[in-house]
């Protein structure tokens, strides 16, 4: 059995002291340790941002790609070798701003990957601009008079797009978050966890205290009830209460790679390269 610290690299995290990313990272490592998957079979596809600097500190296979693009890379890896456990990680700007289109289609494709969004409602690495999940009215360097847009609701969005596992975690409760991450990775299909992660340096609104006062853990909710999940997803907007936990899960939906007949017997990476093109040539006569 591995320990969380087995997933440390030689590089120390570079996040600000008190950053929610520490909690997220700790929970991630704990989830990986508990899942007990050989390290070489885990693949992390990271975007760009404070969140994705985790690529340097986490000892798994890593593709530290572009801002907004961890999902397509993760999907490519999974289609090429579905024996790997593939996890995409990025921030809220990465996932709901730059990469919004990929999120939409990843939800409906139901690739068997997990997707963890470090949602701090602000752009951190670019030193504090409004993000797609910033609350309306929040002042930032890019919207000094306050955000005009209403925030994206990632939970409601994922549900509406047909995601088969939708959860929300909070870096203030590491054991609970680790449990959610574990469930998302184990989930057969697209496992989405929106993770509330305070940015102490740039977000003075969504502080640790802010979340502490509002979060509560879902207990006993029927995760197969889509309509109920949709209602719960709106609680933060309507009642200023923030449910944590699994909103919805559906494992009866087939995952993407299992619907490709050419992948039923072996992974793509195991296919023999030479092919017989004679019949193809013949068909062009």
């Amino acid at each position, binding site marked *: 059995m591995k320990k969380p610290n087995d997933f440390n690299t030689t590089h120390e995290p570079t996040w600000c002291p008190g950053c929610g990313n520490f909690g997220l990272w700790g929970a991630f490592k704990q989830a990986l340790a508990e899942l007990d998957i050989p390290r070489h079979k885990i693949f992390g596809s990271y975007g760009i941002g404070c969140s994705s600097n985790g690529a340097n500190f986490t000892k798994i296979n890593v*593709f530290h*790609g572009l801002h907004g693009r961890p999902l397509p890379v993760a999907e*490519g890896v999974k*289609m090429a070798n579905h024996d790997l456990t593939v996890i995409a990680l990025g921030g809220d700007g990465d996932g709901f701003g730059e990469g919004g289109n990929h999120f939409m289609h990843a939800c409906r494709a139901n690739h068997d990957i997990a997707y963890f969004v470090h949602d701090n409602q602000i752009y951190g690495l670019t030193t504090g601009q409004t993000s797609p999940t910033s609350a309306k009215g929040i002042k930032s360097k890019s919207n000094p008079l306050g955000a005009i847009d209403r925030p994206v609701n990632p939970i409601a969005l994922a549900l509406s797009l047909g995601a088969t596992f939708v959860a929300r975690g909070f870096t203030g409760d590491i054991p609970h978050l680790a449990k959610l991450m574990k469930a998302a990775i184990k989930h057969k299909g697209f496992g989405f966890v929106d993770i509330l992660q305070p940015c102490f340096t740039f977000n003075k609104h969504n502080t640790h205290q802010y979340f502490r006062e509002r979060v509560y853990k879902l207990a006993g909710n029927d995760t197969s009830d889509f309509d109920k999940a949709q209602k719960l997803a709106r609680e933060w907007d309507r009642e200023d209460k923030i449910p944590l936990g699994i909103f919805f899960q559906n494992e009866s939906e087939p995952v993407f790679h299992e619907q490709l007949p*050419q992948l039923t017997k072996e992974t*793509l*990476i195991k296919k023999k*390269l030479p092919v017989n*093109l*004679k019949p193809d040539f013949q068909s062009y006569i």
Partner: protein
Amino acid sequence: MKINNFNWKIGGPAGFGVMSSGLMFAKACSRAGLFIHDYSEYPSLIRGGHNTYQVYVSEKQVHSQRKIVDLLVALNEQSIIEHLDELVKGSGVICDSAKVLFDKKSLKKKGIMLFDVPFNKIAKEVGGDEIMRNTVTLGATMALTKHDFKYLEKIINDQFSDKDKSIASQNIKAARAGFDFIKENYNIDSFDFFLQAQNNKPQMVVTANDTIALGALNAGCKFYAAYPMTPASSILHTLAARGPKHGMVVRHAEDEISVINMAQGASTAGVRSMVATSGGGFALMMEGFSLAGITETALVVVEVMRSGPATGLPTWTDQGDLKFVLGAGHGEFDRVIFAPGDQEEAFYLTELAFNITEIIQSPVIVLSDKYISESHLSIPFFDTKKIGIDRGKILTETEAKKLGDKYKRYQLTKDGISPRALPGQEGVRIFLNSDEHDEMGYSEESIQNRLDQVAKRAKKIKAAGKLLPPAKLYGDKTAKITLVGWGSVKGPILDAMQNQDLKKKVNYVHFPMVAPLPANTKNILAKSKKIVLIETNSQAQFADVLRAGTGIEVDHKILRFDGRPFYQSELVKEINKI
């Protein structure tokens, strides 16, 4: 009497089956052992507009389309009006005078023969639907060219083999009726063109998009991602249809940005991967293309050019993206760019692209254009063993395990190329990083590291060395005029060189690769007295590329940038003026 030298054109609105009849006629000729080149023009819409498809048939290998039409099948009146200037004395026109108000007497005055075939009526009466009018005209064409009807019958059967049997038999009936109508109502000997079967190896009738797809399959490409874009879309269609039985996964992704990132995911996992698009789609891929440069990910990118900027002329040909692909992606990294000159080169260069990209661990572009990517050529089967598969420095499971924690994805080596382990191999950690990174892959911004990694990446292209194609000389070495071209201008130039109206002695230096410039570029042009650049863009972009790479100045330029390809007859005229 003109035997086996025949230029046929069919024109009509989109939705009239112009494209499918064109290909059927091309195959009816190629199956008779004749050589064909076809070329189609169509606007960017699904119904209406004006579509044409022309097939040039010859007793020997041809490379391009012809201007003068020997037989025009006019499915509507517009087809006659649009192409009147392509008809000469002795040319024929098949039309249905019931639907054509055009003054036929003026045609006869020009010596153009009119074959009035009530194809709309025949199609309805015999086939049961006017939609078969195009098939009736194919039958009429067979009769006028004295071509054996059985070739058409067979191709119709094949064409509709996946549909209800009655569809093929009705179409054959319609074709036969057209054939008989001509025989009964016209003296076919008055039309001076003959198509006679000749002995020949079996030939494929393929576009460069077909051969790019086949080349990828033969190279063992197992992952193809794309977002549809004319004129690259048929690569997606071909691979979606044919790929899975060769074990390939084809993914029509949400956008081109996803496409290029997804393909890099698959490539990182160890699968040979390709993407294809046109200029606009490639523009969307820019950041991802640059990503492959710094992560050192193997990837084949096909760019099938059309006229820009932006949406431009979506269905017309152009070589205007040359400098765009040369400079594609922000930051500095090397790429190899192949520019196949024809459908055959496209097969072998695509295959080679997969070897090169894995050897140098940097992206390789195959730069095609609408002209060759949508024009068919008859060519014999490819030699599937000619190129072979070379995967470069990929580590085996055992080699990876042995390295264990010491494995460095970006290890500094003599040739700049680092061993490539794959995720899932035990003992090693794969760390690909779009940040500048150290040898292990960790983000690293120190001066020495940056210098080392930049130098490492710059060295890699040399490893492709002798595998890269040279510039090729066609014609007499001592000719005073040297024509220079890259990519698809090859066909019209080769045909122009054979044209008896050509008054100047010329040779041709063909560039199947535009980056890096072939190693023999300076040598091969050293003795040229006058260099004439032939290119389908308005800025003579290759002149700048040649000057920058070799200091060689082009003396004369023949450019075309109206979306149409060169015709050999036009080239002859231009060259004669020099």
